[in-house]
């Protein structure tokens, strides 16, 4: 028994809050890693676009800088 529940019932229902929280935290770090790559990518992309137009890099209001 785990907290008065049979193990399979406990894991079926009450393990999820902890599992979801752990998944969300892992997702945070995975997404943070992607963000770093994407920031570098977006900066390079903007520079490329600017060079094609012969202008300064376009200001993307509201986007990641």
């Amino acid at each position, binding site marked *: 028994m785990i*907290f*008065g*529940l*049979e193990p*399979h*019932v406990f894991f*079926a*229902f*009450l393990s*999820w*809050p902890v599992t*979801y*929280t752990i*998944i*969300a*935290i892992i*997702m*945070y770090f995975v*997404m*943070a890693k*992607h*963000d770093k*790559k*994407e*920031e*570098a*990518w*977006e900066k*390079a*992309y903007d*520079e*490329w*676009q*600017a*060079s*094609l137009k*012969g202008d300064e890099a376009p200001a*993307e209001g*509201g*986007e*990641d800088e």
Partner: protein
Amino acid sequence: MIGGGVTEYVVLLIYLVGMIGIGVYWAKHSTTSEDYLLGGRKIGSVLTALTLQTTSMSGYMFMGGPAQSYKEGYFTLWYAVGDGGGAIFNVGILGKRMRRLSYFLGCLSPIEYIEKRYPGKATRIIAAIIAICFVYGYVLAQFLSAGKTMCALLGVPLPIAIIIGAGVIVFYTFAGGYLAVAWTDFIQGIVMVCSMVTIFILAWNQVGGLTGLNEGLRAVDPTYVGMWGKDNMYLGQWGVVAGAVGVYLIGYMGLPHVVIRHMAMEKPSLAKQTVVIATVWNQLFIFVPYIIGLMGILMLPDIADPEMVVLTMAYELLPGVLAAIVLVAIMSAIMSTADAQLMLMGTMLGRDIYQRYINKDATDKQLMNVSRICILVVGVVSVIIALIQPPGVFQLVVFSFATLGSSFLPSYVGAVWTKWGNTTGCYASMVSGCIISIVWEAAGLASVTGMHTFFVGIIVSIAAYCIGSAIGKPPTEEMKDLIDRAGCKIKIPTGLATANYKDIAPETNGVLTFLKDSSYMEERGFQPV
């Protein structure tokens, strides 16, 4: 009637005045249509997380959810298992990419987003008809819920309760637009979770913790602590379990009034904080009400109406003012859902109907004013219909959820994750998802087959999206580039990266710099110069 004392009236009055105050404050700060309809795309992660989750959760979590677990035991927690992970799917799959693509396409409404991603003469008409009809059904049901809750808890006559409850929602949404909705949702989200957790902690001590609760339940009826419901009512019905979990795990990705929250995020990178905050909030607010319902079996064995289990516990465990705040929390849960739907109605009618079909050259100011008028008109008409009380309006919530989810989910997910998803697939998915949901519900097939309407609708809708996309005309190269860009996967033409091009066209220096410097590109197998 549980409340009805002076304390409850005073606390509720303070709350309603506070909500109106937020509407008035943000009315002054919404100067453009983007401010009014999408909060100027300046919504931070905490606000996004709470508005996303409070919009998804209605008053059901205070009344219907605990009542179900009171009646059926642990089995009801299957719904919580699905709901609890909803934010991970919703923000993780759609958040960042939808924010980017909607920005690139210049969309202010989730219907406009569908139209621009899947260009076609009928896209916006089909999407708008489905969304307006079923989101309206939702609004109506929430207004009626607000009125009935005030009536049941405070003893206010139903017509007056509907007018007060709906009137406040309409006012602050009308005045402050998306920013007012987001900020009221934020406050409502905090009130909701604090009330629920406070009751939970006090009840936890009363029943002797989790072990005490489970042993107590086993003594009353061992099937309460089993996996298949009281008296093993659902023994071996994995289809019902899959439906209960699946509906809420992925269903919110198809609701336009929920996914518009992604479009309003300040930056795509905020998705990572949003997913954590929304998930933690979910665990506190979703599992707890069901467990409170279980505690009610031991603490309130003779309660006449199980829907009142949370409130009755609040009045037994908390001092008067705090119990009155729980009443406010229930109203918050209803209002936070209703305001988002009302806001979406204004957005769709203003942007997707007025500006698209009636006045294409509408100025920013005109669009904002028309959206405001639409919110007011929808609100007033809803109040009138709610006063007449059409039969079956509560079933409309379940029906609307299934229909909206089935109609839009494949198109929203496919929009950012596939480059082959096209207009034909979008048409097929929206029409088939909508029709199958209506037929399944109208024919009562859900109860006959044991398969939830959404479950069937989404399978048909996904199949239609895939088949339609396979036979339809593929998206344009420009659209494919935008989808790639939304996922930061665009292919810079490597042919440009040659010395010849550099000599012929000096402007390609930027490409060369990009290809030399970007480790991102190298990691993905692009040819470095």
